Structure formats: structure tokens, C-alpha cells
């Protein structure tokens, strides 16, 4: 009998975030980030917030450790501070009875630590890392900067909504914060909600809508927020209702714009585009001012950003171009999913006094992969017709590049899945960016979404110059830049001639790079349209089975699963029936019933 503990690696830290939005889990072994994934990818519940049990199991498997070998679980926010903010909201004058009841119920809820222990039986250490420190660490420790100023901006975590910090070597400290309810994230979400999009997920749509508008309402938007000394600002609460009601904005906001809020799914008018543009402009102004303030406090060349607001790549682009910092690093998973990374990094630093990683995060391919044998078995067991390119990568790439050049849409599934909200060539839908009709085809078929949103281009890293006005690499699609290509690229060019570019490096996204290169050989265009591999309302695909279902549902022309290619024309009828009967995203209440049940018992 062996006891595995004898061979235990030192310092296994698991980072976990759950309970609010987008649960995630990561694992760090001796300071090295080995795996990270969001629970929704496994559970198929969009934005799943439950304890990330499958993600944890996946992380342990990749790290080749068992649960008893974990030294510490790092949790991404302080429950007591969060409770304080919730209680504070409950004792506000005018707080709704409904909200008060929710707060009262919250008082007896099990703590996140209790949930971790109950769900997994884990009896080791659990450490708490504050929400904004988790955000800050998720960017600084993975930036590759030895020292940097750090800015985190989100809706709200515990009490903080914005924090200013400084990182040097292994040390990271936050020196100022802005407290709830004053929040740039909530300002953005409130207008998002006024524009008829979902809070917590529709914000990027507002950003996409902005270029179609004029900043006609910037003056009014500026009335919503007052800039103050140092890093501070304050919301003008008469325009916001989220402290008292189940609604983000107040009647005053409607009066201010002199227009009722847009009904979800109704027509988008010029007014809405103008509001979006005005909001974007004001957001950029505020961020630029606060970034300048931060630079005064921390006169570094480097800036690190994280938090939901840092996903606004248009603002990031301006901060980089017009702000006082030379270099900018934005955590690719800037939303709350990324906090598990930061929490783990902080705990690693606390326990070893060492910096978890001195290198810049090169790739977010930190999720599950499925080898060709597995996929082949799956395809053989099913009644699929497929092409097998095993051992013939050249043949595969030629075939796919030719289909792309012929106007076909490809579901592209290769290697480890991306961590964070963007598809970067591991779970992507690809198409030729040169056709006018490509954008409409994908919007209509695959995305079933608003047609105003453009797609992002992926380009060979060494071929950027003639096509985009971009001075550094952009592997995570976190900034926008101007398109200067001589090619006509309607499907990826925004109305203001900007694009959100992903530069593809041959070392980190090898096969994707090769595909771009093959496409370039045929077409003299080193660029592909790249969008996330999912349909509207569905988490990005994780497993080959998820990919097959999405491919069938969205009627994508070809599906490339590692070395194998399936064609839409060959999809068996029964698959269509089966997919039709499978929900796009499992609902949480369905989750509580489970999927392994007979429908008649």
C-alpha cells in the first residue's frame, strides 16, 4: 500500500469563485497556473453561479493531485464584508420589503466556506481574498511587469467598486478604493438596463452599439456621476433606483432623457445608439482622468487593469493611446470569473512570499482538451459520416482553408479550451472576413442576434502592419484599433472603421496560426472572422459533444474536431431531432432536476 502523500508536490493552491455570477476554478502548482475553467462550460447553465464542482475536479485532474493534497483553497471575496453591504442596502430608507426579506434570509444562508466543505468534504485550509484584491492580483501577477500601477473597476464586489493599487515584484497593495453605491460599473449597467439589455451580460452590446451613435447626450450622462478628489467619484443617486427597488434606474433618469426605457427585444432607434455613444464617451473620460490620477500616485510605465469594466476594449484602446502609461496589461478574464486566478495568486504569495509567475500570461488555453482517439471513438460510435485527417495536418488545413475561401462557415475545435469570455481559436466559429454577406449569414444562422454587432478578426501576428493600426500584439482581443487594410473587410470592420483584433502567435496557437497561413496562401488575406463557438444564450462549447450539438443547431457548414471534419450535409436526421429536443442552455431549475432522468418518472 502506497500513500500518495509522500510524493505530494508543494504548494497546491486552488482558486475558487462562486455564488454571484460565472463561477470558476483554477489550480496553481508551485506558483504555476496549470488550469482554469468556468463552471458554465461543464454544467451548460449559462453564467452558472453554483459551486464549481466539475471545474474543481477538472483542475485536480490536470494538476495530477487529489483533493487531500490541496494546500489551500483561495476564495475570491470576503463574505462578511459582502454581508455588511447587503445589510446596509436592507436598512436604507425606502428599501423594498422584498429586498429586506432577501437580506433577512441571507443571514441564515451557509457561508461559502460551509458550502465548499459540505459539497466536497474538503477539510484543509481555506483563505479569503478580498474581491478587488483578487481582481488586482489577477492582472498584476500575470502581466509580466516587475512593477506596475493597478486599476480595478467593476459593478460591486463587497463594498469596493473601484480600487487603485501598486505592484512591485511579489508585493501588491491597494491604497485607495471607491465604495458602493458609487460605481462606474453600476452606472454602465444602469444605462444598459435603460437601453433594454440584460444587466451583467448586455453591457458589451451597448459598447457595440456606441459607434453607430453621436454623443448627443453626454451632458446628461455627466449629470449621473460627479468626479471628486483623488480617485473618488459619486453617483447622483436620484437617477438610480437599485438601492430601493428591483430596477436599476429611477423615474428621474427617464425624465432626464425625456424618453421611456427601451423594451427588451424591441427596435433599436437612433436615440438608443446616441445614448450608448454618450455613455461610452463619458466612461472613457472618467477612466482617463482616474488613470491620470493613478499615474500621479504610481508613476510607473506600466498599467494593469481588471474588473468587469476592463472588458470595455474601446476604452482600453483610448487609455493606451491617450493615457500616461506606456504599457497596458488587461486580464483577459477581467470579469468575476478571473477572480479565482487572482485569489490563488494572492494566497500563493502570502504562503511563500514569492511571486506566482514572473512571466506575462501568454495564453488562456487553460481548459479541457480531448484527444483524437477520444473524438474518433465518439464519432465511430455514432452514425456520423466524417473525414479523417489523422497524421495529415497539411491536408486538413488545405481542406478547411479552401472551404473558408469558398464562403463556408467552420466550427473550429482544437486543443485546450480558452479561459475567459473570448474565443481565441480553440473553440471558434470561423469565416472569410471579406464578404459583405458573411456577417449577416452568421448573425442570422448562428448567433441569432442583433445585426449591429460586428465580428472580430484574427490575424497572423507577423502580418498585422498592413491591415491594422496596432503597435503591440493583442492575443486576447482586449483593445480596438483602426482598420487600415487595403482589403475590403466588411464583416469585421465597425462603422467607425475600428476592429477588435486578435493577433495569433505561431508558438501559442499553432494550428490556428497555420490555418490562417493556409488561408493567406490561397487568398492573400491573413485574416479570418472569428467568433465564439456557441449560439445565442448558450455557454461556449467545451466538449466535442457540445460542439456537435451547436454545429447541428446552428447549421454551420463544417465542423472540425481536431483531425476530423464533419459536413452539415451529412448530418443524420435523428441528430437534428435529438438536438432540437435538447435545451440550448440548461436552466438552473432544470439543473436541480438533473439531466439523467427518465422523463416519465
Amino acid at each position, binding site marked *: *500500500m502506497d500513500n500518495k502523500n509522500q510524493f505530494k508536490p508543494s504548494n497546491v493552491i486552488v482558486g475558487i469563485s462562486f455564488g454571484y455570477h460565472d463561477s470558476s476554478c483554477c489550480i496553481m502548482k508551485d506558483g504555476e497556473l496549470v488550469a482554469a475553467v468556468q463552471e458554465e462550460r461543464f454544467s451548460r447553465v449559462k453564467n452558472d453561479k453554483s459551486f464549481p464542482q466539475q471545474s474543481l475536479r477538472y483542475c485536480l485532474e490536470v494538476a495530477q493531485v487529489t*483533493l487531500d493534497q490541496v494546500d489551500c483553497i483561495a476564495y475570491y471575496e470576503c463574505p462578511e464584508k459582502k454581508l*455588511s453591504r447587503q445589510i*446596509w442596502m436592507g436598512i436604507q430608507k425606502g428599501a423594498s420589503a422584498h429586498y429586506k426579506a432577501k437580506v433577512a434570509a441571507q443571514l441564515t444562508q451557509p457561508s461559502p466556506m460551509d458550502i465548499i466543505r*459540505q459539497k466536497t468534504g474538503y477539510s484543509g485550509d481555506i483563505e479569503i481574498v478580498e474581491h478587488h484584491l483578487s481582481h488586482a492580483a489577477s492582472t498584476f501577477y500575470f502581466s509580466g511587469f516587475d512593477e506596475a500601477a493597478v486599476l480595478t473597476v467593476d459593478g460591486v464586489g463587497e463594498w469596493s467598486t473601484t480600487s487603485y493599487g501598486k505592484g512591485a515584484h511579489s508585493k501588491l497593495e491597494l491604497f485607495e478604493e471607491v465604495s458602493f453605491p458609487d460605481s462606474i460599473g453600476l452606472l454602465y449597467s444602469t444605462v444598459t438596463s435603460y437601453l433594454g439589455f440584460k444587466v451583467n451580460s448586455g453591457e458589451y452590446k451597448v459598447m457595440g452599439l456606441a459607434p453607430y451613435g453621436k454623443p448627443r447626450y453626454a451632458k446628461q450622462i455627466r449629470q449621473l456621476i460627479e468626479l471628486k478628489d483623488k480617485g473618488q467619484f459619486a453617483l447622483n443617486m436620484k437617477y438610480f433606483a437599485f438601492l430601493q427597488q428591483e430596477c436599476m434606474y429611477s423615474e428621474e433618469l427617464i425624465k432626464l432623457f425625456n424618453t421611456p426605457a427601451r423594451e427588451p427585444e424591441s427596435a433599436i432607434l437612433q436615440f438608443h445608439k446616441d445614448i450608448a455613444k454618450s455613455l461610452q464617451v463619458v466612461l472613457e473620460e472618467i477612466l482617463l482622468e482616474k488613470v491620470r490620477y493613478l499615474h500621479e500616485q504610481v508613476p510607473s510605465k506600466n498599467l494593469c487593469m481588471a474588473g468587469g469594466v476592463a472588458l470595455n476594449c474601446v476604452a482600453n484602446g483610448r487609455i493606451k493611446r491617450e493615457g500616461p502609461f506606456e504599457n497596458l496589461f488587461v486580464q483577459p478574464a477581467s470579469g468575476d470569473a478571473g477572480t479565482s486566478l487572482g485569489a490563488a495568486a494572492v494566497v500563493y504569495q502570502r504562503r511563500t512570499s514569492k511571486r506566482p509567475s514572473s512571466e506575462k500570461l501568454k495564453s488562456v488555453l487553460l481548459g479541457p482538451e480531448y484527444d483524437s482517439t477520444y473524438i474518433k471513438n465518439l464519432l465511430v460510435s455514432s452514425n456520423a459520416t466524417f473525414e479523417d485527417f489523422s497524421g495529415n495536418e497539411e491536408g486538413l488545413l488545405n481542406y478547411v482553408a479552401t472551404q473558408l475561401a469558398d464562403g463556408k462557415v467552420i466550427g473550429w475545435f482544437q486543443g485546450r479550451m480558452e479561459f475567459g469570455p473570448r474565443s481565441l481559436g480553440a473553440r471558434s466559429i470561423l469565416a472569410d472576413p471579406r464578404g459583405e454577406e458573411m456577417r449577416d449569414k452568421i448573425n442570422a444562422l448562428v448567433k441569432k442576434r442583433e445585426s449591429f454587432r460586428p465580428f472580430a478578426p484574427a490575424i497572423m501576428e507577423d502580418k498585422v502592419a498592413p491591415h491594422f493600426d496596432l503597435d503591440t500584439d493583442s492575443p486576447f482581443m482586449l483593445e480596438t484599433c483602426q482598420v487600415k487594410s487595403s482589403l475590403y473587410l466588411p464583416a469585421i470592420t465597425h462603422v467607425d472603421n475600428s476592429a477588435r483584433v486578435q493577433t495569433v502567435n505561431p508558438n501559442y496557437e499553432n494550428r490556428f496560426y497555420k490555418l490562417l497561413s493556409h488561408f493567406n496562401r490561397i487568398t492573400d488575406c491573413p485574416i479570418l472572422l472569428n467568433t465564439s463557438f456557441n449560439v445565442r444564450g448558450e455557454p461556449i462549447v467545451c466538449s466535442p*459533444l457540445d460542439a456537435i450539438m451547436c454545429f447541428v443547431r446552428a447549421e454551420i457548414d463544417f465542423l472540425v474536431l481536431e483531425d476530423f471534419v464533419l459536413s452539415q450535409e451529412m448530418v443524420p436526421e435523428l441528430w437534428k431531432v*435529438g438536438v432540437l429536443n435538447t435545451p440550448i442552455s440548461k436552466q438552473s431549475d432544470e439543473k436541480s432536476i438533473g439531466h439523467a432522468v427518465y422523463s*416519465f418518472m
Partner: protein
Amino acid sequence: MTMINQYRKLADELARDVSSQNGSGLVKQLIQTGLLQVPTQAVNNLNRIQTEDRVGIWKINAENEEYVRDQSTSKDWPFWSALAGFKKQKTGKRFLFLGESVARGMFYDPIYTPAKVLESLLNTQLDEDVEVLDFAKTNASFETLVEVAQGAKCLDADGVIIFAGNNWLKGEGYLKSFEDALALSSEYKEQGPAAIKDAIERGIAKNIESLVDTLEETFTSQGVPLYWVLPEFNLTGWKEITQYPPSSIASTDQPLWHELRDEAMQLIEQGQFEASLDVIKKMEQGDGGLAAQTQYIAAQAYKQIGDDKAYKEALERARDAVLLNTQMRLVPRITNHIKQTLTTELSRVEAHIIDLAKVFNDSLDLPVAGNEVFLDYCHLSSTGIRVSMAALAQRISHQVQGDDVHIAFESALAPCADTESSAHLLAAIHNAHWGQDIDCVEYYCKKAVQYNASIVDTMTMLMEVQNVNVPTWMNKPTSELLEKACTQIQRYITSMEFKCLDTTLCDGFVKAAQEVGQDISAQLLELQIQQHAVEVKGQHDLLDPYYHVDAFCNTQMVEGVSKFDYYNALSPVSEFDFVSKGERHLSLNITCSSKLANKGVTAAVQVKVNGESVGKIEVGQTWSTAQLDIDAMYIRSGVNRLTLEWPEEHRINTGVIEDNCAMLQARQLPILSPVFGEIYSMTLA
């Protein structure tokens, strides 16, 4: 200090206090005592408003006063009868037929149903034309019955039949509606699990009362007679998965109970039945009559002694004991408490009760019903359907025409051999999936083949579908199966999302095929090795529900369903299957614990493969990981069984009552089944 800061300070202090150990207790107490009001979740409310224009899935078309199936409910259609539509106005006599899956005629439906049998009997018997509208629904709950009854009020029925009572045991639902969780937890502390049983039964009784109120209001008070078919349970044919006494009563008595059990079983083996009954009495003192296992042993003794009445009562107690088995899914059943409560309630509306237990005894001379009339725990065989519908028709005829005819069940419609064959195959699948042993599964498989030898083809295709772990719609043989199989099987296959290695079922298929001279064993073995062999897969996860589950009621670690993300051993021996080529040694890697252990104390778990001991691993109170090498000599080609025998020392738990009280106070169903050990991960490579 500004207002905002004052509030903030207050909130900070309160949050700190609540988060502290004492604080959280205090808040809980304040809430439990009602001093601090927290809204409870919605309580069961049976009187939901029913729109006037529909009955079940059928909606009225205002233009021609005809009910047709509402497309928007098409997802639910498979749960109801295949009736396409009906007129609001009746022509002859009209009876409504409400109920659960038993009333649907599960396994025969939609080809052959109790409602059709009844309709044909009544048409022969009554002077007028008779129409029986089949509104029975698989899975019907109290709420379904109420809704259907209310929707059907305007159908001008001459009688309403309700064939239900199996689907009412849903512990957690009742728990949510307990007004006084604190009182229940203290009752539990004093009286043990019996208090919870009482509370659940009170909840059921309340629902029954409310249901009967609705029926009175909608039918009996309007002069529409009510016929209630009281279901029966397959007492001799159905075996519960082994049941242990609830952990909380047993606490320190658990080891003693296990000793007594061994003694009682030994005495029975030696033919000393009276002496065994004395030992059983002592077991009952320990388990409060709430352990099914004790009652099964008692039944065995009474049967040998020849005491039919005591035999039946012991089996009934075994059936009813599982009410407290909160860790497993229960198969539907009617308990003595439900029968009694329902009978009492129905007497106030002068309903006609057709008690199937009595009907089976009178018609077939079956004092204790078994596989003669059942296909599983509660669904009837065609004989069961014919006997019960004949008795019902006789009662209706008497009520309508005042005659006193005897209707022989032989005169009722019978299904054809093909339908019987398919029904028995489905019964075999269902029994296998709900934990019945190979004898039971083989019995139904062989019956299926006897009715129609060509069903072996279907069995072979099913074997392939189940052995490939992809969704059924992706399976190669599925389309062929859907082309060839009859409607019942098609419907079953397309709605079946439960997959497991299904060794019992496949073994049943192999045995049945042998009956008609076909050998499919080599095909099965090849399939198993090709799809599942550890050597082919590289690493094999023994906790994957596909492999650890041999029965649907045993599923654990099902995402979103299970409370824990680890495996709980609910019996002293845990069994897992794996497939191997049997050519080389395998390495077992396991992370496990036994929370019942005392801190710092470890004990050994015995590991066996195919009954042979292959080594021991140490377990303590917290997770620990061990590796064990299993020599090739213990491993055979094909399916192997790995068993873990949890340490006897770890059968005492003192903290369980406190834990359960806390869960009750939080309106959660407490964990009453004992847990002998836990496994977080277990792989073979």
C-alpha cells in the same frame, strides 16, 4: 458622522456578529422563534387556478366545441393518452378516467390501456353507448389530479374514475410546508425518525383532504359518482434495495443491530423460525420498525411458519419503511397510511372504492399479490389490468343500472402476443434500472421471448445502444431500433436519458436469447471490451455514474441533483463494475474517508475484486489518498466487480442527530440513512 457612515458602521457590526459562531446561532434562533420574520418558500397549494378551457393537454376550440391537443404542450404529450381530441358534448354515457402511470397502463400504453379495456367492458354491459375519456397521466401528482378534475367539470360525466395513490410520497415537499420547523426538530430529537415520518404523513393527509374537497365540489356534490381504484403494491415480487436502520435511531446501537441481523438470518437458515422472531423483535427495538431489512427477515420467518397474515403485514411494513430513506429515489407506492387516510376521506363523499388488494384476492385467490398481476413495483400486467377493470366495470354497471351481474375478467380485452412481448421487455429494463436482481430481470426477459422470439433482435440493438456512452439520438443502432420497434418501445427509448453499463439487463438478454437458441454473449463481451475496457480507455473513473450506478435509485453525484459531490456508501459494502481485457495488473487510485471514524483513528477498508481480497486501504475522518496494485490473476476478461467493505468500527455516529436537527430547522430533508464511508475519487489505470 454622516448618515451613510452611521449605517455603514451598523451594517459592519451586524455582519461581523452574524458571521461569528455565536452570532449565526443567535440569528437562527431568532428566525426559528418567529421573532425575526423570514418569508418561507411557497407552501403546497392544491387549489391552483385552472383555466376553464382545458383538460390536461387538451384545449377547447371555441368554434366547434371540440377539445384538441394543444401544440404548446407537445412536450408533455408522451405522459398522456394518445387521444387526439373529443367533443365537449357527449352522445351516450361518458366516464372520465383520471390517474397515474398505473392507470396509463405503463409498458402497454398507448397500444393497450386500462381505459380502453374498461370502455369495451362497459359497452358490452350497459345499454347505452359508453365513452371513457382517458385523462390519466404518467407522473401525475396531487396537483395534476386537482387540475384535471377542475378542467373536466364541464364535461357532463356520468361517473369519474380515479386510479391513483402511488405518487404522493415526496418528503421534501411536505417539509417546506411545515409551519414550525423548530417544533419538528425538537420532536425529532425526542422521538427519533418516527417524528419525521409522522410529519410527512400529516402533510400527505392534508393534501388528500384537500383533493377530496375538490372532488366533492366538482363532482359528488353535483351528483356525479366517484369511483376510486385503490392501487396495490407488488409485495412478493419487488425487493427494496437493502435497507439499513436510520442512522439516528441506531446511533450506538448500529453494531448491535448488525450482529442481531446476522443471528436472525442464521436462525432462519437453520430452520429455527420462532427463535428468529425473538431476535427480530430485538432488532425492531433498535430500529423502531423503520428498517426494511428487518421486516424482510421477519416476512421470511412468517412465510416459513405459514402465517399468511403476518407475512403480508411484514412485507407491507418493509414497503412503508422506505418513506424515511431520504438518500435514494423512491419508486412510487401506496402505503397503509395513505390507504387508510384516503378510505376515510372518501367515505365522506360516498365514493365507490375498488380496493385492488381485495379484488386480486377475490378473483385470483391471491392473498399476497406478486408478479402474477404486476410487471414491477406497481404497474399491472395485462392480467392485473383485466381483473381490476372487470371489477370496476361491475361496480359501475351496478351503480348505473342497478344490476348484479358478475363480470369475469376473462371477458376483458387482452393484448396480442407482440404487445405482451414488448411490455415484458420494457418491464425487464425498468426492473433492472430500479435495482432488481438478475432473477427478476431474467424472468421478464424470458417472458418477452416466449411471447415473441424475434424480440431478441430488439434486445440486441438495445444492448448496443446502452453500451455506447453517447446520447441515444447519436447512437448508430438507434435509428434502426426506432424503425423496427413498436410504439411503446420507441416512446421509451426516445425519452430514456438514463444510461449505465447495464450488466444485469444485458445478462438478462443473454439468458433470454439462449431460450430460443441464440447466443449473444460473445457479442456482448466484445462490445463491453471495445467500449469500456480500462486498457482501451487508459483511465477508468469508477465514480462515473455510468459505471457506479446499477440502479436509477442509486444515482449519486449527479450534477445539480446530489447534495454532495462525492460518493456516499449507503451500505457496509460498496460495489462498482469495471471492464477489463484481463491481461495485466491494474492500479487503483482512491481518495476516501469515513466520517464516522473518530478523529485521528484509522481503520482498514477491505478491497475485493470478484470476491477475492486484493488488499486493504486505511481510512480516517478526512480525505486521504491511496494506491493499490491489483494483480492480473484477480482480473478477468469482461465485467469485473470491485467491492469495498467499510470498517465495522465505523458504524457509530453520535453527531448525526444534531446535524439532522440543524437541517430540519433549515427546512431541509435530514439524512436518515446511515453512511458507511465516502469516496471523492476512484480510478483504475
